[in-house]
């Protein structure tokens, strides 16, 4: 084994018991998705004229975007602020963001009544600079492309000098090789432009997601209706970035039987109480200025959800992660990170669903079985694709001196392995 740490492909079988279960869930989810496409939103969801948005927007899109924020926070820390030791988490965070946003778009397509028009905001004749949604849409679209560009070096690294297409396709080997060489030369010089762009674009649309509901003052519960909502969204997205990296890194190390990168993870966990603290201070200050405290105690569903969001999702992890004992234990980190993730996801659900009070409700909204199946299916699919990528591309760094499970040789791994086209 090499002494310097470098990302490697994970030499494990793609299929495990867990993967098979996920495949099952993903298949059912896909069936629900197809049902939506064939029979329409009315048949597949519980949405109506009173509740135009449901969990596909609140979870798949809004929470999805927030939880993919690890990509830009990590890139900023490691590449812009040059904190070298965090380089080991850049690639996993980037992959999460890339897949996260990809699935955000897939989820969004299910919710769009006229999904085939999704490209319309790109046409200058339909640009609508007054629309918050327009800005979110444009930023997400551009950022998704930036993420794919940022991922290219990993692809190049995997294939450069090793292209070996199967069968008659081998005549293209040379061509592919030169494409890779050119991209490599271009990327190594200009990738920094994309990295900065990614951070700027993220700041823009993470905050704008928070502006969306500001247009509905009479339909929003006062606990969440504030004009600093964009700032709160941005701060909470930044705050959830590292916990998301921690959460995943611990899960991945368990799944691939690696030693968790504890020093790095405890080190980034130090930022979390600070970031969450600022967020909490703003939330409380805002509540005080708006004189909205009485709503916290009004005993409604909204007030309970608000309390859970704040106490469990913000206060608890601040307390936990302020203790070095917690930060230096894998379990402590995992629990605290999960709480932060839960808190931010719940905040998005609260803003887009719980806080939304239609003017003429007939019944309250609860997601249909199809909505739930699609959402759960998409999450499973995301995990499956993630596993596929880390098994085939050098994303995850093996900790120094760690001996990979030698029993499974890369060549012998299953069909879901692209080694055939690599020399």
């Amino acid at each position, binding site marked *: 084994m090499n002494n310097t740490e470098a990302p490697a492909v994970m030499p494990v079988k793609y299929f495990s018991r867990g993967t098979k279960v996920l495949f099952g869930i993903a298949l059912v989810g896909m069936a629900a998705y197809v049902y939506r496409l064939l029979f329409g*939103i*009315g048949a597949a969801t519980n949405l109506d004229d009173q509740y135009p948005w449901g969990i596909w927007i609140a979870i798949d899109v809004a929470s999805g975007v927030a939880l993919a924020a690890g990509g830009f926070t990590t890139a900023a820390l490691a590449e812009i602020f040059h904190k070298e030791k965090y380089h080991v988490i850049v690639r996993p965070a980037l992959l999460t963001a890339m897949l996260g946003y990809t699935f955000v778009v897939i989820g969004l397509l299910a919710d769009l*009544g006229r999904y085939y028009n999704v490209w319309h905001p790109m046409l200058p004749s339909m640009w609508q600079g*007054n629309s918050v949604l327009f800005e979110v849409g444009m930023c997400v679209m551009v950022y998704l492309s930036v993420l794919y560009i940022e991922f290219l070096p990993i692809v190049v690294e995997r294939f450069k000098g090793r292209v070996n297409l199967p069968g008659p396709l081998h005549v293209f080997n040379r061509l592919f090789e030169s494409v890779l060489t050119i991209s490599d030369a271009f990327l190594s010089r200009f990738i920094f432009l994309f*990295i900065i762009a990614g951070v700027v674009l993220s700041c823009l649309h993470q905050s704008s997601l928070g502006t969306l509901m500001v*247009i509905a003052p009479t339909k929003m519960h006062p606990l969440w209706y504030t004009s600093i909502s964009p700032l709160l969204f941005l701060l909470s997205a930044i705050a959830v970035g590292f916990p998301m990296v921690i959460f995943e890194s611990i899960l991945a190390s368990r799944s691939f039987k690696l030693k968790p990168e504890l020093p790095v993870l405890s080190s980034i966990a130090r930022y979390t109480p600070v970031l969450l603290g600022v967020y909490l201070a703003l939330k409380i200050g805002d509540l005080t200025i708006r004189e909205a405290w009485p709503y916290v105690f009004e005993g409604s569903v909204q007030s309970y959800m608000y309390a859970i969001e704040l106490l469990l999702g913000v206060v608890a992890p601040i307390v936990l992660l302020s203790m070095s004992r917690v930060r230096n234990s894998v379990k402590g980190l995992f629990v605290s990170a999960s709480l932060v993730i839960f808190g931010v996801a719940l905040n998005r659900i609260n803003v887009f669903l719980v806080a939304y009070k239609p*003017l*003429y409700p007939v019944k309250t909204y609860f997601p249909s079985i199809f909505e739930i199946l699609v959402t759960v299916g998409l999450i499973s699919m995301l995990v499956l694709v993630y596993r596929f990528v880390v098994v085939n591309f050098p994303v995850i760094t093996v900790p120094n001196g760690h001996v990979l499970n030698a029993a499974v040789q890369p060549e012998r791994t299953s069909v879901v392995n692209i080694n055939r086209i690599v020399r």
Partner: protein
Amino acid sequence: MGITRRDFFKLSAAGSASLMAGEALASDGAQTALNPNSLGVLVDTVACIGCRKCEWACNDANALPTQDLKAFEDKSVFARHRRPDAGAYTVVNQFSDPRDPSKKYSMKIQCMHCNRPACASACIVGALQKTPEGPVVYDAWKCIGCRYCMVACPFQIPAYEYDNALNPQVRKCTFCATRLSQEGKKPACVAICPNEALTFGKREDLLIAAHSRINASPEKYVDHVYGETEAGGTGWLYLAGADFNNTELPKLTATVIPNLTETIQHGVFKSFVPPLALYGLLGLIMHSLRAEKNGKEESRHE
């Protein structure tokens, strides 16, 4: 607010003159008054007899699912408050005077054709537009079906064709925009109203008419023209004999709803300066820290 006009999105959109017109109207806010010739309708709920002929005329004019005119005489529908939906752009509801519950008023509900429509400000592709003539119109061809307009509308008017799998549309009163473009035609509902509960005309004139009706018979009307200021003003205006709080029209302040988001939006994007400044700042940090790091590494090698 002048500076917002120079904002990047709009500069880039300069190629599309029609869009520019729509946006200039949408973004200039209180400063640019509504086109003085903008049209509206005055709904006098005291004069309304609840005959529901307007519902029939609307369905007929817009090719909505309908029945014989006779079927609309059925008053049992008043038992509950109905809402306009994808198959009915307007409905008539009844409410009673709290001081004298035996006294019933009828109220027609439809899109208010706001002066500064939240739906149009929200729409991601400009499928909803306030025309200079007054109607807020919808272009299904542009629409992507995100339903943000439904979230935004303070009157909760736009309805959706949820049951249409392939070609669903946002549905709401069109103010008979195509009829109006023909010389001398009125909206279908106004044309059929037997009791002149609906008056069609320039919004400015309607406001004057509304106030003079109140002044002429203060015992019949509450002194409030709903829509004069609500949500920044609406094209459709209402008169009532009892407090509007008892009707299903929402209680709204004079806040221009789109201003709530547009000020944030245009602040962040002012001539695209803040994003570019952030870009430059991050670039600077990246560069200087890299130089610093390289320096350290070199000294370590020595």
